């Protein structure tokens, strides 16, 4: 099997090798104002329509052409293009900077990509966003959040009211790989999921892949969200920030050495609890509840061929109640990157990554307790890009992660009557090798094909238990340090192809297999800071998915409109659920509480976007189904997964009333998720107990909500009289600022957050259903500035 696939790979590659004398032109493309690398900027050849290259995530491009005279066009949406004539008789280096189109001319930027890239690229189920695009979209508490904007796209569902948690194409939340500058973020939410850890001021680019992952990504079944931080302004010192009702932000960027290196520091802190302190209620004013985020990044160019980056993120939620209960949790990530150019065609990126998530609970009073848990990753990876010729781009590399899992530790005072205890640490080595090639067979047909070989070794030191059917340990074995407890290997083929029907439309199809070796134990409705990550082991097998998708992509009215539709089918193996009464926290035998089975998800997605003009925005609709079948749950019958949602519709609109004023609105409508409600009741010890007959057999009520927003930019210029001509002209000011007003849930719909079935308080002897709704008409105001 492996041999065959590898042979096919090389056969395809050999087929592509041409013989004519060729030279390459390569370099980097940057923003002239800030010196930031431009990702996905295009280099087109005027004489050879359809031939071109685009920059990678470090702004690097390489294009190989037969000897000759060419006119190259360098372009990036929202920037003024540059044309350059070259005589290609040698390998050439052209690095340049593009200027942002002036604001009078600039149309609202909706994508950071080539105008027709959605049609021509082999990307399927891919979403690209820049923080700029989400600036004017109204959000809860005025806190713009990339994870919430992504939920307005097809195939991506919110995990609940106001939540940053998301599900992709019927997969569970732990099947999303969230990367910040390449380092995994294990819990991307603050404050019960109402905010994400991503401070959009610090971000440069977000790329979400919904399943047809290229071979360089792996480790999760459903999606990869690749978030990149800003590199920092390499031209001049710039400061930006914002003041909001619930949080404030400040970002400082500056060159270290002009055009050679720069840094960025960005911080955010919420202060919702300051309002609680104004309360007369003693319960509330003794409550502390806030979070902060700190993002830092620095980069430096060591000559023409090398550049190093150092970036870090640190964030923490802090809560304390009446000095008797403290609860903190947070993520830390660190990234060291080294870009090296071997020659005009071979680019390599080496990364050393660190990632940690932990929580810590402190209880003081009659009993002094401390409970903590964490996961720590050390990760080394190398990614090569080889620009073989204008028709082939080969990528290959490796990735190896050493995981340390500390599922839980309880420390107690000797006098507390509680024994200190600890769930043994677990260790795992997760590795992968990959090779892929994107090849243009002709001007119509492009194929991206690759293989990823993944491997996981559960390592000692530790005790491994075997369980019987009832979940009782029957035997145990101790493994020494770094001794291999269990190994798994997976071969993951990834293919996606594009066939251009004509200049403005294409058909795409793809297949991807993924293996997931680490899993999240989460037993509650919303994302919970105490959810724990566990490795695959003797008792827990890797989750595996196979996804097939087909799509049709069409651009209309000279790329003014973009339309796409995709259908997908995903089958999953070894998905996890819990036995009744499972207690995953502080439980040595947590594996005995797990049940395994199969999952299946399929759906159709529709997307229409208007990219240009005074009015911009998009509509997205998803029709989908997601089921699980697990022995021991629902009598072994298939049941709807909790993320199963049949219809999901969103519409987002932004209208530029005046050059400095944008009105925006979004409306979402979706049918309720699958949920378990009682079908009867009975009595035990004079208590009424609900009777459940099937898992997730009911639906939550339909959800809909309208949000409104208004962004007003204060004039960033003043009029002055030119002494030479005597005419009035605009002089740009260094300081610019804007106001953002928004209303969340503008028509006050009472959407169900949860429904409780309980004994009636008003009519004794009966029971009733009580709906809890969270946010009804939440206005907010934010002031943003930049200088």
């Amino acid at each position: 099997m492996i041999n065959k696939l590898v042979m096919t790979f090389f056969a395809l590659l050999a087929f592509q090798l041409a013989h004519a004398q060729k030279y390459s032109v390569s370099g980097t493309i940057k923003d002239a104002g800030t010196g930031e690398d431009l990702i996905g900027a295009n280099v087109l050849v005027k004489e050879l329509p359809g031939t071109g290259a685009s920059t990678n995530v470090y702004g690097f491009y390489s294009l190989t052409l037969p000897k000759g005279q060419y006119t190259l066009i360098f372009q990036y949406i929202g920037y003024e293009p540059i044309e350059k004539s070259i005589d290609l008789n040698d390998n050439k280096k052209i690095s340049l900077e593009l200027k942002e189109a002036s604001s009078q001319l600039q149309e609202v930027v909706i994508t950071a990509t080539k105008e027709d890239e959605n049609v021509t690229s082999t990307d399927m189920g891919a979403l690209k966003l820049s923080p700029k695009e989400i600036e004017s979209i109204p959000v809860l508490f005025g806190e713009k959040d990339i994870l919430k904007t992504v939920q307005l796209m097809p195939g991506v569902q919110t995990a609940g009211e106001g939540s940053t948690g998301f599900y992709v194409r019927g997969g569970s939340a732990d099947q999303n790989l969230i990367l910040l500058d390449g380092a995994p973020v294990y819990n991307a939410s603050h404050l019960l999921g109402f905010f994400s850890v991503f401070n959009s001021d610090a971000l440069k680019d977000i790329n979400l892949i919904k399943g047809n992952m290229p071979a360089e990504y792996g480790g999760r079944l459903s999606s990869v969200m690749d978030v990149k931080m800003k590199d920092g302004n390499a031209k001049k010192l710039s400061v930006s920030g914002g003041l909001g009702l619930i949080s404030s932000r400040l970002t400082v960027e500056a060159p270290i050495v002009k055009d050679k290196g720069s840094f960025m520091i960005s911080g955010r802190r919420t202060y919702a609890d300051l309002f609680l302190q104004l309360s007369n209620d003693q319960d509330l004013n003794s409550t502390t509840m806030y979070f902060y985020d700190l993002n830092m990044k620095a980069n430096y160019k060591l000559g023409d061929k090398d550049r190093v980056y150092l970036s870090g993120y640190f964030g923490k939620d802090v809560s304390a109640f009446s000095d008797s209960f403290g609860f903190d949790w947070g993520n830390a990530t660190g990234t060291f990157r080294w870009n090296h150019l071997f020659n005009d065609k071979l680019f390599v990126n080496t990364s050393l990554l660190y990632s940690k998530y932990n929580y810590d609970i402190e209880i003081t009073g009659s009993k002094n307790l401390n409970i903590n848990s964490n996961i720590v990753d050390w990760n080394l990876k190398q990614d090569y890009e080889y620009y073989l010729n204008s028709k082939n781009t080969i990528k290959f590399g490796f990735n190896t992660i050493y995981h340390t899992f500390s599922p839980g530790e309880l420390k107690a005072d000797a006098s507390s009557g509680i024994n200190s205890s600890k769930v043994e640490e677990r260790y795992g080595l997760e590795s992968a090798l990959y090779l892929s090639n994107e090849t243009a067979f002709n001007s119509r047909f492009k194929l991206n094909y690759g293989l990823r070989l993944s491997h996981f070794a559960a390592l000692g030191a530790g005790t491994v238990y075997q369980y019987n059917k009832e979940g009782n340990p029957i035997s145990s074995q101790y493994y020494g340090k770094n001794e291999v407890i269990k190994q798994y290997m997976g071969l993951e083929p990834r293919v996606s192809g594009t066939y251009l029907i004509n200049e403005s439309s294409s058909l795409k199809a793809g297949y991807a297999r993924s293996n997931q070796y680490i899993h999240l134990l989460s037993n509650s409705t919303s994302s919970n800071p105490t959810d724990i990550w566990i490795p695959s082991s003797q008792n827990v097998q890797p989750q595996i998915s196979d996804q097939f998708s087909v799509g049709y992509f069409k651009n209309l009215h000279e790329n003014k409109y973009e339309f796409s539709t995709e259908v997908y089918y995903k089958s999953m193996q070894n998905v996890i659920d819990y036995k009744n009464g499972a207690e995953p926290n502080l439980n040595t035998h947590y594996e005995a509480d797990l049940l395994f089975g199969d999952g299946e998800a399929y759906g159709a997605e529709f997307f229409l976007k208007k990219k240009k003009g005074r009015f911009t925005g998009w509509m997205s609709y998803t029709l989908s189904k997601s089921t699980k079948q697990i022995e021991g749950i629902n009598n072994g019958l298939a049941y709807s997964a909790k993320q199963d949602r049949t219809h999901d519709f969103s519409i987002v609109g932004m209208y530029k009333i005046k050059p400095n004023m944008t009105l925006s609105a979004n409306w979402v409508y979706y049918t309720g998720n699958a949920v378990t409600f009682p079908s009867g009741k009975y009595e035990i010890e004079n208590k009424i107990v609900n009777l459940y007959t099937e898992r997730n057999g009911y639906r939550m009520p339909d959800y809909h909500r309208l949000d409104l927003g208004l962004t007003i930019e204060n004039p960033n210029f003043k009029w002055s009289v030119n002494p030479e001509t005597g005419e009035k002209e605009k002089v740009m000011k260094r300081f610019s600022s804007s106001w953002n007003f928004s209303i969340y849930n503008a028509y006050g719909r009472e959407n169900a957050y949860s429904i409780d079935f309980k004994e009636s308080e008003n009519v004794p002897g009966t029971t009733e259903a009580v709906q809890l709704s969270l946010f009804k008409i939440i206005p907010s105001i934010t002031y943003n500035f930049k200088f």
Partner: protein
Amino acid sequence: MKYITAIATFLSLIACEKVIDVNLNDSDPKLIVEATLENNVQNNLVRLSRSVNFNEPNTMPAVVGANVEISAEQGPTYSLIEIEPGLYQYPDLIALEKDQYELNVYSEGETYLAKSSFLEPVTIDSLSYEYKEKSQFFDAGFRVTVYYTDPSDIGNYYRFKVYRKGILEKNIYVSDDQYSNGLSTSRVFFNLSFNKGEEVEVVLQHIDKGVYDYFNTLADLVNEQGGGSSAPSNPISNISNDALGYFGAMASDSKTITIQ
């Protein structure tokens, strides 16, 4: 759980609750068994009833005319007498010993079976109370603590019953020895606030794992708390043939304290 409660407190500033109509399915009536075998109790009882649809009133039909038997592994079989509709009583006090007991119910052509072990009672060392100011989560008032010593072997399970002036409190309290094996340990009933002059009786029941699993999963459903499981399900019953409820042999010890 406390964290969820705290967040819920915060959200209650902006959240709202209302009673809604939900169209629920009908369900087949199921046999509900409530059977205890407890020392220190004059008449042990077995109550048999059936479940009803959620939208009906809270009057559960009694199961009459059933044949109910209890036997010890090392002893005779006793037949229970129906003293009122759905309520079955032992003919006389059984001298309970450390043994496994079996319950058999024959009703409307179906047989239901359950087993439960009677263990050595664990005695309550003492009770105490202490006044607590109003806090984030609880009302002001006296809190009662029960002290007991866990046996040295691992795998002991408990249920606590708290009576205020002779009336059983609705919350279900269970505990195991996962964090307290072999220790002199205690349990505070944080969410029960008592007043001066009230008489509080605490019953400590030493139970087997099957009964613990039942009450532990029942507590998830009936105890009042925010959040909760995303997929609630019926408690783990130790009764066969798809009946709900439990059969529990319970080695009990009790103490009473009056708040002064």
